[in-house]
């Protein structure tokens, strides 16, 4: 595992990774500064039916929506919701998946194996299918979207870590540590974990993009954050009945999703190249 400054420096040398980093930073900054940079911060909740469905203009950069709110401001605030959902969901998946993967991979105890079988159950259908079922069951809210995404995403991390740990256990330096009588807890935390950190980070970055797309799909299907939350997927779905006249309604949130997912994907690819030379071989020669 390399130090953070080294990693960053190497990342910046790769143009597409740098672009990804820039896009992610852009969206993060937009999310943080949303209340200050949005021209109509009240647009998140205040409605003015008289202004509805206005095309883009100097007053309304991206036009207005069906409730007469400024779409530009809503897209900015939407970045907060999107990033929050993805961060918490991926974070929770990490917190569940990594320990299970470590434990199941290291101890050969049957419970560990059983947990991996449980993860297989979740991997036996495409994520979106289970996520829809769970989100629909629990009712639409940000918390439930996060829950649905975490419950269906942790097996990916468990799987990844499990495979890495099983491979590592056969490495000489680990076998040596075991032979020397180093307590298992210390081996796992000091030797195994740092070695699986790189693939985890890469997976997490790609996972952010993936999770944002799934969350937006849930929003689009009406199973996401409820109104007036400016959730991008739901904004796109709202726009449908006003097409083709109000093309701007669908455009802005879609581009926003594209930018942030593109950012995380490019960043993930870049990180893979820098952090994980093994994978680099097959992906970027």
């Amino acid at each position: 595992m390399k130090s953070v400054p080294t990693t960053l420096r190497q990342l910046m040398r790769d143009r597409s990774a740098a672009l990804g980093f820039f896009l992610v930073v852009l969206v993060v900054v937009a999310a943080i500064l949303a209340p200050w940079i949005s021209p109509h911060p009240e647009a998140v909740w205040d409605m003015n039916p008289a202004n509805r469905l206005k095309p883009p203009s100097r007053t309304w950069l991206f036009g207005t929506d069906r409730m007469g709110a400024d779409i530009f401001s809503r897209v900015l605030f939407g970045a907060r919701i999107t990033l929050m959902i993805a961060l918490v969901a991926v974070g929770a998946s990490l917190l569940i998946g990594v320990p299970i993967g470590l434990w199941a991979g290291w101890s050969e105890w049957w419970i560990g194996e059983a947990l991996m079988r449980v993860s297989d159950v979740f991997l036996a259908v495409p994520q979106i299918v289970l996520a829809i079922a769970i989100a629909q069951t629990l009712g639409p809210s940000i918390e439930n979207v996060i829950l649905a995404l975490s419950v269906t995403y942790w097996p990916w991390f468990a799987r990844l870590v499990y495979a890495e740990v099983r491979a590592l256990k056969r490495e000489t330096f680990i076998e040596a540590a075991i032979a020397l009588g180093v307590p298992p807890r210390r081996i796992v935390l000091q030797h195994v974990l740092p070695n699986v950190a790189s693939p985890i980070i890469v997976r997490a970055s790609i996972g952010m993009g993936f999770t944002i797309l799934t969350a937006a799909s849930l929003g689009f299907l009406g199973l996401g954050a409820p109104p007036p939350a400016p959730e991008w997927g739901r904004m796109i779905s709202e726009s449908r009945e006003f097409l083709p006249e109000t093309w701007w309604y669908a455009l802005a949130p879609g581009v926003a999703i594209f930018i942030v997912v593109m950012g995380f994907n490019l960043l993930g690819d870049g990180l893979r190249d820098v952090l994980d030379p093994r994978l680099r071989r097959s992906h970027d020669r």
Partner: protein
Amino acid sequence: MPILRLRGTTAVARRLVLAGFASLALLGSLGQTATAQTRFVFANESDFDTMDPHVAFDVGRIAVRLNVYDGLMRWQSNPAKLEPWIAESYAISKDGLTYTFKLRKGVKFHDGSEVKAADFVYSLERILALGKGAASLFKTMIDPGKAKAVDDTTVEFTLTKPSAIFLAIVPEIHVVNTTLVKKNEVNNDWGAAWMSKSSAGSGAYKLTQFDPAIGFVAARNPDHFKGWGPKFIDEIEFRGVKDTNTRVLGLMKGDFNGLGGYLQADQLKRIEESGKAKVHEAESMRVMMMQFNTTRAPLNDPDVRRALNQAFDYDGFNKNILGGQVERNPTPLPNTIWGNPKDIKGYAFDIEKGKALLAKASAKIDRPLEIHFLTGFGQSEQAAQLFQNGLQKMGIQSKVIGTPWPTIVERFSKPETTPDISIYWISTYYADPHNWIGEMFHSSGAGTFKNAHHYKNPKVDALLDKAVEATDQAVRAKYYEEAVRIVVDDAPGLWIYNTKWYGPYSKNLAGVVFCPIGNGLEMRTAYYE
């Protein structure tokens, strides 16, 4: 075989025939197929999952019942009038318990057998046994075995108690061909499996094709007892097309000749501007409303409920969001029906007045109120958002939650699970005030889909009971008017608009007769000009 004969004819004759074909093709470009038959294709807003007339009691699937089946009576024209249909005449006994219908002679099912009184008896028994659709309403007034065929042309129904609305729902006893249905019974299912995809009716059109994923096609029944005008449509097709844009574009392209669903003002404008279709307009009866759960604090306090009534931007919604295509309806009864007092102005959008009411209310609002809209219904969602906005200005926090129809109906069943505020519509199932105020506010109806108020007011209950037992409409109207006044003052709900009906049809389609029950989907009288 005219094509074969063509070979031996002269070039002139050949050219004449070709010209004939060309004019047919020209007709085709006007929205009809290139055959001599006239076709009408309707894009319905929801799917036709079943063809059985006895399991559905809704507007979305009414086209099957109106076109393929007949009843004793039928709601016709606008304002809706109940007219004898297969019945020639009817009589009600003095005690209001026995209804005797005299049938027309010579009415035939599609297979040529005669419609007899026994078929109506079987049809009612079938409705009650299947327990779906209109059965629940019938069960409140008539028991199985209480319908009797006196002779082939006389059918008699004996009610358990007098009911002013029995006649209003008699049209739902769509007559089915007893012999045919019985022949297709499996495990005593009253032919349910077979009837869901076939037909056994006597209606103006005969079912020829049905696919639940697409819709149904029916061909004209030349022997229909009502007879036909000089012009008519030979074949009708009803398709389920859930996406609004597809429906609108299809009509503009000529793929469809009529559209269902309540379109937004800008879509109607688009259709009119296209020049391909025209929009028929009529008064209708479908009230958009919010129902408050009156059992829980703070909404158990009438002052809080009155304050809430001042928090909705009625004009912003009706005029801006809906583009003025609806009319404000200040009471739970549609403006256009009898029994609704004409002088009630209702509540207005007034934040300050609302705040004042809240100040004097005994209940304090110490939690966010839950506003539930129907998932997939953009209008109810926008109303929820607008209401949330008004409440916030009044200092009340709220959560807007989308809930699918089956879920919300289940939640209504108990006061504890009923949402604080639910936004939806009550359409015309039968044109009687009981359809709205009777089922919405009588305490006995609490928990049904029409009653999420769980409202209990003995005075209102008594008035509504008297209104159903009385038979004279003038007397009944008085009871309803009084009930409406009490309810509006007590504000267990919030009433937004009564819809107008906008029916987009092909430009050359004529003869469409609108009725609030049926929304202009009875095609018997329609034709192309």
